[in-house]
């Protein structure tokens, strides 16, 4: 069969059910084979390849399966770059197949030629240029294996047009063995025992739950561990979903915009066990003062994360799932009631809060959404203030249910990622929050919601500003709001209407309850455009590079 058919059959062998793809000259043969032999493959065609890539990423994060993207060479491929970089920073598994000019034309500046493996080198876990038809199937096998195993990430396969048209016998390998890639699953038993000892001796232990817990589907094991030991827990932006039975144990989100009590716990703990955390600068603030009283146990599947940003006292390399399981099998008796009291008092004394006003406060909207949307809904955000308000205030209790661009902070992620989540989770509600700025970065994807009969609930928190940057200007640049006003925003209600999506404008706090209820109950997609208090800030805030206890509670 020809190379294009081999690609399609390989996808089926991988159990792929959805492909996000946009056609063009260099992939037209693949589309033809999808047309003829693509049974079982749901073909989602975005309106822009960036949207398609974020959608595949949202699909991957929410389902745990690898997202598949197929795009044409040149501009098709370069349009995926932001999506690939976003997935790379948050370790989201993607296989991106890019068409390439014929292998005989590579290097000649042919029409729509671009050096895709060169461009994507620093933003992929691995990439391949298939130069020989006999390598095609095995390369696809490798790509899926690498993307989905160990620390997941995006993999690009660049496939020249002539390779797609050559004939070869289809023989899909059952397994691949890569001598130089063997991710480690189980942690070293000795290290685990030492960790238990450290925990047992600790008076003020704290767990940080990171993105690795979601990625290795270890939220259940994490919750069991927390319930068994009673140790308090905080989470990173990517680690959302952890949910101990005792609400006092849960101290929310940490870092630059973390809760006061979460950051307090970090700074006062005597032992921190970080699981699947990469200690980004947004989490640690000043690395020299981060968790200054604590010993650190660092569990991660990627050995390169150990000692990268924060030095560890005890590293354990392996998957969060298998290591937490080991922990749960071992006995650990600790008495930390004093520490727990200290933390729950602090939590009660310094809660998250906001001032009521005549204008709609975004936190109020989040409260209402929480009230009316089912607990297992998938919450998706864009980037900016909207993102952090949701991260702080929406109490998400399930794994893979909070999708946001953490590492790259990609405006325009929200809408397409929500679409991808809706494709992958037809039985769940998907609720997107976006700012007025970021929503416009991929708003063209509104065009496919009706086309594929998807149900996506959308809230545009409109402060008429690029709010997060405006906040920095208020804090650091004496309110010189350069390049952050959003005057002449479109009428988002009309915009949705153009795409035949139900929509409503909300300005009066008194109507908010009914509107958000309607949004939750609606049987079809719906967008609510909300004029919020334009001056509302995200607080608390630890200015960049400061210690987690050098925190501002007002600007």
């Amino acid at each position, binding site marked *: 069969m020809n190379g294009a058919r081999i690609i399609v059959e390989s996808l089926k062998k991988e159990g792929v059910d959805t492909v996000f793809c946009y056609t063009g000259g260099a992939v037209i043969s693949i589309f033809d084979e999808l047309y003829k032999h693509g049974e079982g493959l749901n073909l989602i065609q975005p309106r822009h390849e960036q949207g398609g890539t974020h959608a595949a990423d949202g699909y991957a994060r929410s389902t745990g399966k690898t997202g598949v993207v197929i795009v044409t060479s040149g501009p098709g491929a370069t349009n995926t770059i932001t999506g690939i970089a976003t997935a790379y920073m948050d370790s989201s598994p993607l296989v991106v197949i890019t068409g390439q000019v014929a292998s005989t034309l590579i290097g000649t500046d042919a029409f729509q030629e671009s050096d895709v*493996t*060169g461009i994507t*080198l*620093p933003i992929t*876990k*691995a990439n391949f*240029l298939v*130069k020989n038809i006999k390598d095609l199937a095995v390369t696809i096998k490798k790509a899926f294996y*690498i993307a989905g195993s160990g620390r997941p990430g995006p993999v690009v396969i660049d496939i020249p047009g002539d390779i797609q048209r050559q004939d070869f016998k289809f023989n899909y390998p059952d397994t691949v063995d*890569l*001598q*130089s*890639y*063997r991710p480690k699953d189980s942690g070293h038993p000795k290290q685990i025992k030492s960790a238990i000892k450290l925990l047992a001796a600790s008076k003020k232990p704290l767990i940080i739950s990171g993105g690795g817990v979601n990625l290795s589907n270890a939220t259940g094991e994490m919750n069991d561990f927390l319930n068994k030991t009673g140790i308090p827990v905080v989470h990173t932006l990517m680690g959302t979903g952890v949910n101990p039975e005792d609400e006092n144990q849960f101290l929310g989100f940490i870092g630059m915009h973390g809760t006061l009590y979460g950051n307090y716990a970090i700074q006062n703990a005597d032992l921190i066990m970080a699981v699947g955390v990469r200690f980004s600068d947004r989490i640690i603030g000043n690395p020299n003062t981060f968790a200054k009283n604590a010993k650190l146990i660092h569990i991660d599947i*990627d*050995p*390169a994360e*150990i*000692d*990268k940003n924060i030095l560890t006292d005890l590293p354990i390399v392996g998957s969060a799932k298998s290591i937490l399981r080991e922990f749960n099998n071992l006995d650990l008796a600790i008495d930390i009631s004093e520490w727990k009291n200290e933390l729950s008092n602090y939590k009660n004394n310094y809660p998250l809060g906001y001032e009521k006003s005549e204008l709609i406060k975004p936190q109020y909207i989040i409260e209402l959404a929480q009230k009316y949307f089912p607990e297992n809904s998938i919450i998706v955000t864009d980037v900016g203030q909207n993102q952090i308000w949701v991260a702080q205030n929406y109490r998400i209790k399930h794994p893979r249910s909070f999708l946001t661009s953490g590492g790259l902070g990609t405006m325009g992620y929200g809408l397409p990622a929500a679409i991808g989540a809706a494709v992958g989770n037809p039985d769940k509600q998907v609720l997107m929050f976006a700012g007025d700025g970021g929503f416009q970065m991929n708003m063209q994807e509104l065009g496919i919601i009706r086309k594929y009969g998807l149900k996506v609930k959308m809230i545009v928190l409109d402060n008429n500003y690029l709010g997060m940057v405006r906040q920095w200007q208020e804090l650091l640049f004496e309110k010189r709001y350069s390049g952050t006003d959003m005057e002449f925003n479109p009428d988002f209600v009309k915009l949705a209407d153009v795409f035949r999506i139900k929509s409503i404008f909300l300005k009066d706090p008194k109507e908010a309850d009914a509107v958000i209820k309607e949004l939750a109950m609606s049987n079809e997609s719906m967008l609510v455009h909300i004029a919020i208090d334009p001056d509302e800030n995200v607080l608390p805030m630890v200015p960049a590079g400061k210690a987690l206890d050098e925190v501002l509670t007002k600007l």
Partner: protein
Amino acid sequence: MTDEVFTDHIVSVLVHNNPGVLSKVTSLVTRRGFNIDGISAGPTRQNDMFRLTIVVKGDDKSLEQIQKQLYKIIDVVKVVPIIRSRMVGREICLIKVKAIGAERHEVLQIINVFKANIVDVGTNGFIVEITGDSDKIDSFLALLESHQITDVARTGIVAMNRWERTFKETGR
């Protein structure tokens, strides 16, 4: 981060010789904030494997980072830091030097002292080949400096840890 001491480090990297592997390795090293001062590459006894010897500048802590990051490249099989005090390191250098008349004799003398080889002779000068550790080559070049050197080509160092610290060329 400003008052850190940056030193030269040598790492020996065993890689699968797949297309683009060299650019993957160098781009990673550069991306993680290192300067590459030298790099040499050549085949090993296994057909599909190459050994790269890279000289990089950075502090000790980031050297460890580099090793771990290198392992994340799928084609990288083994990374071994070369310990300066226990290594054997060699470089080859070709030098095109002008030597006319009386000068010819002086140049020949320096060449003899260093046990360097003349690999090409012309009416206006020589091409000299010298093998040795980097210091030897540096001092050789310094001595020749008073004559007219028109071209220098250095391979960059290839190095191994001495016997008691060696590694097999297979597996991690």
